């Protein structure tokens, strides 16, 4: 410890001397607004903080500057390599809204890749007590990490334990640079019942470099953000390439917030929107710390302005390839004072001129439901749609099912177009009661223009009465299935030069030109379990013990007693007479 302290001091001095140039921090903020075909508005904020430092190179970092200190300490303490956390209220409707820039399941989702040096971070005693093994110390780190994050985000992440944590083998590969893909260092958990509200938004906003004081973050007024059809806030930490040569890495912190406003119904049927209508604020300045601050509005469907009118008009237009499709955006650069005009505020306004055209069906789409009736058994159906007219592509399907729905893997069927479609890869980890959930991961080839149905039967367990949630007849949630796929793209993807692209198009690494990575989440399930009567534990204990006592008593009776001829019992008068006779010393009556 003393050594570390000594080493720390010159570092600090160095930092002061060299100032910004030593460990530069780059901050970018952007807002994408996309009018959806259903008449809703999709607004996606992204804030990226990129810091060229290394938390794990041995030296203790104590000067975090614009990087949130709470997160930096978490990274170095728990040897985190990648951390992805999202809180979502509502379900993203792919069939109406298309694909989101960053998918997330309803509730809270957390997945973390740990460094392979995670054991070194723990004091020797802990290691010797818990017999040295990687997964063991990863579990320990994971447990503490979830509790710390629970405090940072005011969320129930402390309810993440071994019963809802899994280690997927293929679905969640690291998104940053690095070559460790051993699933022992990965932990994935979803809390589908988590309710997201203001108390989660406030700590999330505090992590932004400008807080909610300046820049795009001023728009985040919670009463407006939560009055929406879909709200999702996420935070991603990962190591990325410092430059295009990728000789060294820097840490990227990406905070995203996605909202879908239902302005069509709340706006009295008018399909107009403006920043002020959505957020009840307008933009007045960029975040002074940010190197880039932009607002993008998707105008792909409106190249000549025949569909809608955007005001104030902007000369800047950007082309980007997003989710396999070329899109066109009008760009408002907030770092440029001219953007704000005479009023010193920017209120982007959109007026519709013509009726909406039909949306193209998304290429990949998933649905899930529970079939069957009664509280004894059931069947989970997962439908995966490939809407591509002529291309088949494989998808990875990940299902995490809690232990109290006992899956029977021999009942697993996968059918496409009425025929059996055997998965080429199945990774199945059966559940352990009260210890670990089921994990089912499989690679399925989706034929072109088809629906693939995956069914598996389960049995509902009766739990101990203390294991039920406070409202047991509401049912139990089962987290979303995760479908990960490389989907054939319409436009050639941009495989190099991720630095220059807008943030929303550069999250998932892209290795091939012809395909792009896509992850979709199905609906979470709500399943009822049989319940005992909660009001009568005492009665049950008493009654069952009585029955056991009846068994014991009757056997005890027969074991200890013997048969004897019954002596006739004397009448009461006779007995009294005998007592008197005994006193008198006269012979007794018989």
């Amino acid at each position, binding site marked *: 410890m003393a050594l570390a302290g000594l080493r720390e001091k010159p570092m600090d001095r160095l930092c002061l001397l060299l100032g910004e140039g030593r460990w530069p921090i780059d901050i970018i903020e952007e807002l994408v607004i996309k009018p959806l075909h259903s008449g809703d508005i999709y607004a996606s904020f992204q804030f990226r903080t990129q810091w060229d430092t290394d938390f794990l190179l041995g030296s203790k970092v104590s000067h975090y500057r614009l990087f949130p200190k709470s997160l930096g300490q978490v990274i170095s303490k728990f040897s985190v390599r990648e951390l992805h956390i999202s809180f979502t209220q509502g379900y993203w409707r792919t069939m109406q809204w298309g694909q989101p820039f960053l998918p997330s399941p309803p509730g809270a989702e957390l997945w973390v890749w740990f460094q392979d040096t995670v054991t070194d971070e723990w004091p020797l005693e802990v290691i010797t007590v818990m017999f040295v093994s990687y997964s063991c110390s990863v579990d320990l780190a994971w447990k503490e990490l979830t509790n710390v994050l629970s405090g940072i985000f005011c969320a129930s992440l402390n309810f993440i334990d071994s019963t809802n944590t899994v280690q997927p083998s293929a679905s969640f590969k690291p998104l940053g640079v690095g070559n460790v893909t051993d699933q022992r260092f990965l932990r994935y958990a979803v809390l589908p019942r988590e309710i997201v509200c203001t108390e989660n938004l406030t700590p999330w906003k505090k992590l932004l470099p400008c807080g909610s004081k300046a820049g795009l973050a001023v728009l985040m007024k919670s009463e407006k953000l939560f009055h929406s059809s879909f709200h999702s806030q996420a935070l991603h930490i990962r190591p990325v390439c410092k430059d295009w040569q990728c000789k060294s890495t820097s840490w990227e912190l990406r905070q995203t917030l996605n909202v879908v406003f239902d302005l069509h119904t709340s706006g009295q049927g008018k399909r107009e929107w403006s920043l002020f209508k959505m957020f009840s604020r307008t933009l007045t300045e960029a975040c002074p710390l940010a190197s880039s601050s932009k607002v993008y509005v998707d105008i792909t469907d409106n190249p000549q302005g025949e569909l809608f009118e955007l005001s104030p008009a902007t000369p800047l237009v950007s082309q980007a390839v997003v989710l396999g499709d070329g899109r066109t955006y009008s760009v408002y650069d907030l770092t440029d004072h001219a953007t704000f005009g005479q009023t010193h505020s920017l209120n982007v306004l959109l007026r519709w001129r013509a009726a909406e055209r039909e949306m193209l069906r998304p290429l990949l789409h998933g649905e899930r439901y529970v079939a069957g009736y009664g509280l004894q058994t059931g069947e989970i159906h997962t439908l995966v749609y490939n809407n591509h007219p002529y291309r088949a592509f494989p998808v990875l399907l990940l299902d995490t099912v809690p232990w109290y729905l006992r899956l029977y893997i*021999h009942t697993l069927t996968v059918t496409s177009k009425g025929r059996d479609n055997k998965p080429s890869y199945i990774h199945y980890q059966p*559940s352990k009661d009260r210890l670990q959930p089921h994990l089912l991961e499989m690679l399925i080839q989706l034929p072109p223009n088809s629906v693939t149905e995956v069914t598996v039967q389960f049995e509902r367990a009766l739990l101990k009465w203390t294991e039920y949630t406070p409202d047991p007849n509401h049912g139990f949630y089962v987290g979303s299935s995760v479908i990960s796929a490389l989907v054939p793209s319409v436009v050639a993807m941009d495989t190099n030069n991720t630095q220059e692209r807008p943030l929303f198009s550069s999250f998932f690494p892209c290795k091939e030109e012809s395909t792009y990575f896509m992850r979709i989440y199905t609906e979470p399930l709500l399943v009822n379990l049989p319940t005992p009567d909660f009001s009568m534990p005492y009665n*049950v204990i008493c009654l069952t013990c009585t029955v056991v006592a009846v068994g*014991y008593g*009757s056997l005890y009776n027969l074991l200890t007693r013997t048969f004897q001829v019954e002596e006739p019992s004397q009448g009461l008068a006779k007995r009294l007479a005998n007592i008197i006779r005994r006193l008198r010393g006269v012979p007794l009556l018989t």
Partner: protein
Amino acid sequence: KFSHLKSYFESTDSPEHFLQNTKYNAGDADVFLSTKMAAPLTLLFIVAITIRAVLFRSSLADLITERVEVVSPLNAWKRVVEGLALLDLGVSPYAGDVFHETPLMIYFFHFVIDYAEIVFMVSAVCIVFLLQFRKQKYALEGDRYPLDCLELIRTPREMLYIPLKVAMFYLLNPFTILSCVAKSTCGLNNAVIALFILSTIKGSALMSAIFLALATYQSIYPLTLFAPALLYLLQRLYIPVNWRRPSFWLFTTQYVFMYLGSLAVMVCLSFFLLNSWDFLTSVYGFILSVPDLTPNIGLFWYFFAEMFEHFRLFFICVFQINVFFYTIPLSIKLKEHPVFLIFMQIAIISIFKSYPTVGDIALYMAFLPAWNHLYRFLRNIFLVSVVLLACSALFPVLWHLWIYAGSANSNFYYAITLLFNVAQILLVSDYFYAYLRREHHLTHGLYLKRKDGSEATLVLK
């Protein structure tokens, strides 16, 4: 009618005579069986197999397979198939909490999975063949009893119908049929126990020890059958149960070693088949600690679903000890009557075990015709049979109301399990009472008189 019984009484009590009589009687019965009983028995088998085959092919089979009364987490066929599917996927069947069969069982089914239905039908029929041999014993009881007890002693003619009655009681018992159609592995465990009884009664100590070890290996509880088996074999060899006799100790040690040896072989074989000890916690830990609270006809599920967490361990210990607890007192009380002791132990196991099914009940019910000479001393057989029948009918009704209709709750089903178990307890204790009472009459005469010559009544004191 009683001519040759009388000859028993006149004969001395020497072992030689005893043995001769035995042989004569058994041989006589076998000849009789082969000629006269063959036809009805064959007919019975054909009927029993037809019923099962028809049910296997009908749509009812799926319904029966799901019934919680018929299958438990320990012996459900669905879970056997799941275990085999896990093996095919390259996952250890004990990695999850669905499969609880023993490793030998999974390897057995690995080979016969395609013939499962035949295996279950054959095992049901085999059990009947194995239970046949119990008849030999009762003809021997005739000697050394007072003459006025003649009507308590069964005639050889009556004895000859016992195998047929046992066969009918087992094969046509709806509980057995349901258990067989559901392909519950309980039927195979019953077959192992029947093999054990057969080899014990045949006097083969080694086979008896091996099958007892196999039964214990399958489900722990048959461990309590060790005492009656030992008593029976001792009795057969005319070794008195006397602590001071070296011959008693010699034989007991031999039997213990045979039993423990074969148990060790089975456990080690299981270890080498899967190369892990996981099966110990997954099979025996599962039986003893009762983690799966799926409703069944037993007493455990609702009790431990409603149990306060800090009392759980205590009550699990109490309930499990309860199963083994009766062995020693019963062995002392019934040391002269090991076959009845076997019946009592099997009945107690099937009532108080952690995951009972109707298949377990069917096994001890198959013994009931063998005790038909106790019928006159049973006190509440009518009430008990009515309650058992009513409960059997109410199980599916209340299950439907709770699980499917939603108009009842778990208490309804629980109430029926309680009643069903009370009825079973009454049935068993009634038979125990009748047996003891008959023994008393055999030694003291049937019509007891008081000193003054009036008719006396017997009471337990």
